[in-house]
């Protein structure tokens, strides 16, 4: 293989010949007859226009004040980046927060206890978690429904039997199912974090109705959910100090995992795929030059036959 590479480089197959191409293209360029000052003027105008456009774009992006909603700031998540997995200790704490706080009002009907195995809990722990809930099953031999402890195949419990019951219990506001909530909201886990930590007093002139709370990150500002996370409002089994922002970070990470359980595998496979693709790209580039080398180093002429 080493000999192969030496021969490739020796043959100059991978060397570029931009210089010749540029010289040839210059013959047909309309700007080749310009004077020096004309070229300088043109260059200055181009740089200025590009700079103004870049500045405008940056300023426009940084403010986003034209919308009637406060956009969540981007946080530095442990799983941010092309190659970063979830912080699974954080996911485990996030499950504890979900169980102690969120599950009181929110359902999570598309996540099953078995999915916790190998992500946040061992199999025995997941079985114990599932056994804590009671699930309606049946019918039995007499046709009656009965309650049994949860199994690994059961989904997380729903606090209300249906949406109407949920609305009736929450002043008409429906607590959304949290299974895919970070995928369903603009900003994802940044939004969840900002919403959970963003409660504040309404600005002057904004009146909140009974059972409504002000949150600038919620569309319209009036949200039916009261602030749920305070310092020490949930307990961690691993001894992490349960500040409000820590609780919000962990539960937002956990909700992101719920809506994207394939996240870690996707990034691992992505690294493999990109590595292979870049190798194949180099091979393709070489192969193309190899195929064209005979043609590019040959001068083809048309010599008409002379009339006798």
């Amino acid at each position, binding site marked *: *293989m*080493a*000999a*192969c590479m030496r*021969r490739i480089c020796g043959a100059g197959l991978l060397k570029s010949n931009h210089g010749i191409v540029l010289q040839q293209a210059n013959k047909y360029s309309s700007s080749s007859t310009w004077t020096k000052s004309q070229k300088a003027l043109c260059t200055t105008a181009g740089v200025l226009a590009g700079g103004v456009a870049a500045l405008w774009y940056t300023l426009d992006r940084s403010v986003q004040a034209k919308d009637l909603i406060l956009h969540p700031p981007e946080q530095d998540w*442990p799983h941010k980046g092309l*190659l*970063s*997995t*979830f*912080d*699974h*200790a954080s996911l*485990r704490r996030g499950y504890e927060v979900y169980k102690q706080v969120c599950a009181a009002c929110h359902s999570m009907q598309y996540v099953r206890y078995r999915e916790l195995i*190998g*992500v*946040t*809990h*061992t199999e*025995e*722990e997941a079985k114990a978690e599932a056994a804590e809930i009671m699930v309606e099953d049946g019918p039995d031999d007499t046709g009656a429904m009965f309650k049994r402890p949860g199994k690994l195949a059961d989904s997380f419990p729903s606090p209300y039997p249906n949406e109407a019951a949920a609305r009736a219990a929450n002043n008409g506001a429906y607590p959304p199912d949290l299974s895919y909530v970070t995928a369903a909201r603009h900003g994802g886990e940044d939004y969840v974090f900002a919403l959970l930590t963003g409660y504040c007093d309404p600005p002057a002139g904004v009146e909140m109705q009974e059972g409504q709370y002000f949150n600038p990150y919620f569309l319209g500002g009036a949200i039916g959910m009261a602030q749920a996370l305070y310092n020490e409002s949930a307990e961690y089994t*691993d001894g992490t100090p349960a500040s409000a922002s820590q609780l919000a970070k962990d539960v937002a990470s956990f909700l992101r995992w719920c809506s994207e359980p394939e996240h*870690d595998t996707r*990034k*691992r496979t992505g*690294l*493999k795929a990109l*590595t*292979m693709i870049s190798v194949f790209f180099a*091979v393709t580039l070489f192969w193309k030059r190899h195929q064209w080398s005979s043609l590019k180093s040959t001068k083809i002429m048309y010599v008409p036959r002379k009339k006798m």
Partner: protein
Amino acid sequence: MPSFLISLRVCGEEQKTSGLEESSSFQLNMALYELLFKRTSTLALTVVVGAFVFERSFDVLIDGIFDKINEGKQWKDIKKNYET
């Protein structure tokens, strides 16, 4: 990939008469060609075995890099705290 490249090179080398036959890499290539690439049966076997070896080593390499980047974050790094 390398198989057909090398075999092509060998075809090219055979036409030349000067110098290259003595080089050790040429002799290695010829030996490989005679041993592996000349017959379809051994070529197919080479491809299958080569694919297996490559796949295994590539997976181990990339998984190692990925686990190094994410050291301490994945479940396999923390599960010792919870297994009895």
